[in-house]
C-alpha cells in the first residue's frame, strides 16, 4: 500500500510544483523560482530524498529556458518513477534484511545502467540485472560492500573475485555469472 502511494510521486510533485510556479509567474509574483527548492525541502523532510545533480541543473536551466526545462523535468520524473517502481519490485523479492541496501545503478552516475553496473562491481560489491530489466546493487546498512550476495532471481550477476584482487585500473577484479 505504501509503495502504491509512492508510485508516481515524483511526477505528481513535479507537476504540482510546476503549476504553482507557473501560476505565481502569471500573477506577477517573483516567488515562482523559489517553489522548486521549497518542494525539495518538503521531499527531504518526507522521504529523505535530496535533489541530485540532474534536478539542480534542470532547475538552473529552467530559470533561463522555462518551458524546455519544465518538459525535461517532467520526462526525468516519469523515468525516475518507473525506476522506483521496478526497484521496489526487486526489493520485494529479496530477503527483508537486505532490502534497504538495494539501490538502482541508474542513479549511480550519468552513464548507462550497464556501464554503472560494471563500475560498481569493480568497487567491490554485488551487482545484478533483474528479469524486469533494472540493474541494482547491494550494500549493508552502513553502506559497506557485500561481495558475495546471492540475489533471488538474477539474469546476470557481477561480483568481485574472492579473495579480492586489485585491478590495474584501481578497482577490484570482478567477473560475471549468468543464471
Amino acid at each position, binding site marked *: 500500500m505504501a509503495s502504491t502511494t509512492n508510485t508516481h510521486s515524483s511526477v505528481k510533485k513535479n507537476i504540482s510544483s510546476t503549476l504553482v510556479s507557473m501560476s505565481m509567474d502569471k500573477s506577477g509574483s517573483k516567488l515562482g523560482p523559489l517553489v522548486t527548492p521549497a518542494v525539495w525541502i518538503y521531499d527531504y523532510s518526507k522521504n529523505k530524498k535530496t535533489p541530485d545533480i540532474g534536478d539542480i541543473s534542470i532547475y538552473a536551466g529552467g530559470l533561463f529556458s522555462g518551458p524546455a526545462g519544465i518538459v525535461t523535468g517532467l520526462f526525468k520524473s516519469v523515468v525516475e518513477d518507473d525506476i522506483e517502481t521496478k526497484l521496489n519490485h526487486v526489493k520485494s523479492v529479496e530477503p527483508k534484511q537486505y532490502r534497504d541496501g538495494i539501490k538502482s545503478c541508474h542513479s549511480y552516475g*550519468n*552513464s*548507462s545502467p*550497464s556501464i554503472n553496473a*560494471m563500475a560498481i562491481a569493480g568497487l567491490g560489491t554485488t551487482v545484478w540485472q533483474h528479469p524486469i530489466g533494472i540493474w541494482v546493487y547491494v550494500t549493508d546498512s552502513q553502506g559497506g560492500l557485500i561481495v558475495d550476495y546471492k540475489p533471488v532471481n538474477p539474469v546476470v550477476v557481477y561480483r568481485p573475485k574472492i579473495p579480492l584482487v586489485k*585491478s590495474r585500473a*584501481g*578497482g577490484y577484479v570482478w*567477473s*560475471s555469472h549468468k543464471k
Partner: protein
Amino acid sequence: MMNIKQLSIFVPLFIVSLVSCDNTTNDFDLLCGYFDELEKLNSQQEMTADNKFNFINDLVSKNLTEDSAARISFNAIVGYAPANGRYALYKTTTEEELNKSWQCDSMKVLLQDL
C-alpha cells in the same frame, strides 16, 4: 508555419543536441584510436601488460573527462576476468550507450593483454 521567433529557439536546441550526440560517440571512438596507436607501435610485442595499460591510460586520463562513459567503462572493464571476455562485454555496453552498432578491431586484440 514556424515564425522567426520559434525557429530561433528550435534551431539552436537542434544543433546542441547534435553536438551532444557527437561527443558521446567521439569518446568511444577516441578510445579505439588509442588502441590503434598501441597496435601500431613497433615495440608493442615486447611491452608488458603494465606498460600497455599505462600507454592507454595516459591517453585516456589526458583526453577524456572523468565523467566520460568511455573512460568509466574502460577503467571497469580492465578489472574484468577472464580477460578474453572483456571485449565482448565492452562492445555490448558501448552499443547500449550509443544505441548503435560499434566495434574496434585493435581493442578486440589488445584489451585482453592489459
